[in-house]
């Protein structure tokens, strides 16, 4: 839902970043207001996953320039856990397995960390169990998953549902979902998308990072951005995604080639 | 028969171990080898070291379960075996017969990619892989060094299509048959080698193989060693690997009064692939022993090791599998599995993985199992009408074949399983 007067939640300006010695982001700018759903599309290697990791503060990525304001304040100086507590959520493309750490305990500690960030009281174990059982329904997960170790031995679909469950518990202001649709069959995709739609509201925002149109068939974006070679090449409405689906990414290459001939830096 | 031409052997079997060595050294010196004696200087050094080294006793960890009595019961003389009947050489194989004194390359034309190493280069190269793998001072290596009279040394360039068969048969003669081998694989070279060592009597087959693998080289190495009730085998396989190289060792030994195999591998800069698959059998009063050592001296190395053992009768099987992952060896991936079948209540299994790690980003797993045949599997076969003893034989064969099938194709005429189980006439 686009409301020009809605408050800006995330403002990315000329962001550049590298991993090891390899520059990946070469000047990304993006503004996200409350209530909006954005989709970033692009080929593998275009930098879209890097953008999500930089926003969440992954230590392997070094920001080399630009700014990111989150609710008007500098995001990049915050430790990853402080970003999460402030309401920024990253749904991982490859959720990490953590043997030995129980999913339930993990969810409880994370939920309480976020609640503390919102100035709310900690939930005791009983209150938390009630909450988690309620939120499980959002992703139609079996409570048995709570007793297992974090993501250990989960199928691809189960891992992604576990991500959305975390999103449902952490109640983020900005949710960045990195390739949440990858590796999902059609039923799992519908469940995951249903969860995202359920959680999207006028006060929060969602940034979908995806390769394919099919996620956007079930979650309707307000804005679609096409990324290539570390930059956003074009921004449009949901029809841009359809155009991509129809024409493929080849035109992106052409546009990119034209761009690289232009000496001036394009933001 | 060089040894036979000597005067009466100096010491009788069963004498004190120290005097056994002294007698052996006295008998071994002065035995001339065919052609130039490239080994003379190193032999005298090894002889000196051996004379000063006490026999490995069971107080030493590496020999704790391995009694040398069957060895020191042997005649301390050098053996020159007589040629024995062999299966026909298969197409695609070149067979070299090793008897410890004559030149195995005499009258042989080597296939493209193989050439002998001799002269100064041999002197410069010999012993280097032993040093690199920390094997130079091992007692079986000293024993071999003090007695071996010649060495088969080959350089390998490019891919060699022919399988090299290196064959010895100690026969029923008495004494010691020392064999020394050196293979230098140039970068990107590849070779398949099958060693077959047999015995039919009270003798020792001692061999030391040094193999150096250049970058990207590949050595597929099979070893089949069916022994004799009174025979001994002491085998050291030292392998030094450059990056990108692959060493794949498949060994099977059994039937020896004392059979001990020591594969010792080092990946000098890591980033190489090593595979060890082994089967050892101990029946009667036999001892089958493997002490393997894998050292990663650089990152990204890989080891896959499967060691299988069967102990029956009053046999004793010993396995010690050392894996060393020092700090430089980040991202090492090493897996070792020791699987043991204990088939008799008078047999023994001793198995000990030994993992030493000083690097945090590594995957090292090992496992060990000791049990008899799976009752469920036996029952399943029986429920299909197969008699219990036949079912047990089938399962035992299956257990062995998992390793034996990995031997080079050239092993087939030697009937690996039948020869190890003593089910064929010699």
């Amino acid at each position, binding site marked *: 839902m686009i409301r020009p007067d809605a408050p800006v939640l995330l403002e990315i300006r000329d962001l550049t970043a590298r991993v090891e010695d390899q520059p990946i982001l070469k000047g990304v700018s993006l503004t996200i207001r409350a209530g909006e759903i954005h989709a970033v599309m692009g080929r593998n290697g275009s930098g879209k996953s890097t953008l999500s990791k930089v926003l969440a503060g992954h230590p392997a990525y070094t920001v080399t320039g630009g700014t990111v304001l989150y609710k008007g304040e500098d995001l990049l100086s915050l430790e990853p856990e402080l970003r999460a507590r402030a309401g920024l959520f990253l749904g991982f493309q490859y959720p*990490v397995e953590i043997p030995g750490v129980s999913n339930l305990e993990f969810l409880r500690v994370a939920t309480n*960390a976020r609640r503390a960030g919102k100035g709310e009281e900690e939930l005791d174990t009983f209150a938390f169990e009630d909450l988690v059982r309620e939120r499980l329904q959002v992703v139609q997960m079996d409570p048995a998953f709570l007793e297992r170790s974090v993501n250990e031995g989960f199928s691809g679909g189960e891992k992604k549902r576990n991500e959305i469950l975390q999103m449902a518990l952490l109640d983020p202001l900005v949710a960045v979902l990195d390739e949440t649709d990858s590796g999902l069959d059609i039923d799992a995709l519908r469940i995951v998308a249903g969860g995202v739609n359920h959680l999207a509201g006028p006060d929060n925002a969602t940034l979908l990072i995806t390769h394919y149109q099919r996620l956007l068939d079930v979650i309707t974006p307000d804005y679609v951005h096409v990324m290539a070679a570390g930059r956003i090449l074009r921004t449009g409405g949901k029809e841009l995604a359809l155009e991509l689906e129809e024409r493929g990414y080849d035109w992106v290459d052409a546009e990119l080639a034209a761009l690289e001939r232009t000496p001036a830096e394009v933001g | 028969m060089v040894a036979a031409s000597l005067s009466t052997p100096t010491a009788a079997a069963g004498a004190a171990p120290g005097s056994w060595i002294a007698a052996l050294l006295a008998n071994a010196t002065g035995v001339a080898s065919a052609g130039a004696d490239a080994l003379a200087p190193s032999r005298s050094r090894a002889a000196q070291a051996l004379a000063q080294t006490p026999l490995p006793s069971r107080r030493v960890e590496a020999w704790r379960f391995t009694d040398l009595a069957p060895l020191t019961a042997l005649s301390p003389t050098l053996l020159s075996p007589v040629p024995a009947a062999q299966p026909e050489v298969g197409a695609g194989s070149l067979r070299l017969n090793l008897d410890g004194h004559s030149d195995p390359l005499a009258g042989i034309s080597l296939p493209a990619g193989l050439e002998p190493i001799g002269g100064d280069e041999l002197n410069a190269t010999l012993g280097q892989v032993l040093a690199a793998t920390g094997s130079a001072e091992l007692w079986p290596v000293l024993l071999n060094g003090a007695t071996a009279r010649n060495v088969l040394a080959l350089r390998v360039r490019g891919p060699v299509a022919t399988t090299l068969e290196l064959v010895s048969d100690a026969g029923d003669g008495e004494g010691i048959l020392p064999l020394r081998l050196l293979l230098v694989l140039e970068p990107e070279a590849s070779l398949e080698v099958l060693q077959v060592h047999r015995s039919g009597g009270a003798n020792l087959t001692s061999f030391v193989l040094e193999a150096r693998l250049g970058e990207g080289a590949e050595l597929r190495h099979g070893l089949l060693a069916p022994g004799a009730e009174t025979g001994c085998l002491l085998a050291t396989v030292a392998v030094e690997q450059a990056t990108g190289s692959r060493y794949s060792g498949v060994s099977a030994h059994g039937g020896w009064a004392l059979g001990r195999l020591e594969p010792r591998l080092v990946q000098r800069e890591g980033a190489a692939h090593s595979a060890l698959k082994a089967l050892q059998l101990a029946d009667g009063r036999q001892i089958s022993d493997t002490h393997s050592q894998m050292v990663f001296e650089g990152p990204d190395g890989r080891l896959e090791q499967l060691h299988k053992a069967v102990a029956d009768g009053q046999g004793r099987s010993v396995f010690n599998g050392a894996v060393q992952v020092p700090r430089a060896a980040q991202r090492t991936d090493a897996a070792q599995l020791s699987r043991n079948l204990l088939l008799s209540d008078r047999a023994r299994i001793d198995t000990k993985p030994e993992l030493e790690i000083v690097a945090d980003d590594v995957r090292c797993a090992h496992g060990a199992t000791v049990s008899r045949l799976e009752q469920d599997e036996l029952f399943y076969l029986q429920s299909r009408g197969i008699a219990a003893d036949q079912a047990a034989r089938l399962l035992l064969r299956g257990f062995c074949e998992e390793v034996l099938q990995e031997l080079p194709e050239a092993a087939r005429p030697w009937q690996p399983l039948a020869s190890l189980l003593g089910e064929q006439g010699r």
Partner: protein
Amino acid sequence: MASSATVGDLVSQPYKYGFVTDIETEKIAKGLSEDVVRLISAKKNEPAFLLDFRLRSYRQWLQMEEPDWATLGHPPIDYQEIIYYAAPKQQEKKASLDEVDPKLLETFDKLGIPLSEQKRLSNVAVDAVFDSVSIATTYREKLAEHGVIFCSISEAVKDHPDLIEKYLGTVVPGNDNYFAALNSAVFSDGSFVFIPKGVECPMELSTYFRINSGDTGQFERTLIVAEEGASVSYLEGCTAPMFDTNQLHAAVVELVALDDASIKYSTVQNWYAGDENGKGGIYNFVTKRGQCRGDRSHISWTQVETGSAITWKYPSCVLQGADSVGEFYSVALTNNRQQADTGTKMIHVGPRTRSTIVSKGISAGHSSNSYRGLVQLGPKAVGARNYSQCDSMLIGDQAAANTYPYIRSQQPDARIEHEASTCRISADQLFYLQSRGIAFEEAVSMMVSGFCRDVFNQLPMEFAAEADKLLALKLEGSVG
């Protein structure tokens, strides 16, 4: 010891037990000789059989060599520089706690082990050992109502000499190994537990060992006997002040379980480990062995080893009785320059005996952490089973994790399975937890406790909840 409040105290600082109690101590001159052995025995008014045991052990010790096979390194120990007996000066052990020197009570208060009537723990009986002697044992009367004997071994020698003569040295003989022989010659105090036939001990028993003197060795001896059908859960804890010299701690623990008896022995070892450069700290050379003498008997060792400069310790089970069960659950954490060579021996003698080994080693800093275990199945162990799992977690690339599982079997109708793996705390896992709002230290703590969960589950409940925090604390600054 096992209440959550006290354990909370225990983990609140890196090493908060480094203080020295200023108390007048009676010591005998340093050095070891037959006269010293006789003097220790005389001070305790021991019966002749015990003096004989000590002297026999001493003479055997003189003939023995210090073991050097473990992957441990330390400068040679000068056994003539050690004081073998040190006791806080007070008269005979007091009938009432009110008469114990308040300084001692204060010391144990400070350690989180209140002994006085008003403050003591409600569900745990505690024997408090200070340097060479036991100064107090709580709840003795209540336990006595059930026929349970829980007292210091010195008192047991006086009050129950028949039991001591019957059991002492029968599990760990006086000449068992170098350090056990030394202990047998000079042991000063320790705990004695006797659970009579059919009795389930009504409360947790616990001994708390405190080294106070700087130049004293600690040689305690613990003996626990569970008669037919009896059961007991016992916990020991240990701390010592921070001295920059090394101190020797050579204890012996013997457990005897008769038919259907069950002994659960838990240790939380937090001796002073030395500073980050390896200066000072305790040499913890301990012999612990349990004998499942009876059919269907059960001995379980659980240990959390976090302290000591050097640990050399293999709590073992000799499974003699048919269907007897041995268990070993261990977490060993080493950091800085600590060295640990620890594990277990499961000796299967009787038929259908079963054993389980779960060992978790965590190596950080420049430390060295070795698991060394023996599983031995004798010819009569028909139908025996063993399962072992030993996992290592490496933190940083300067620490060593070694695994030496010895497996020996002479019994075809038996099954042994051993598994081992290594893991680390990966940057990806840490980031994942952080990205959910979990702070770095807490993320490490969660992962370490997850790694150790199988062992912590075996600890008495109040303690398990806090054990992971103890580990996280020990690891402070070593991750990342």
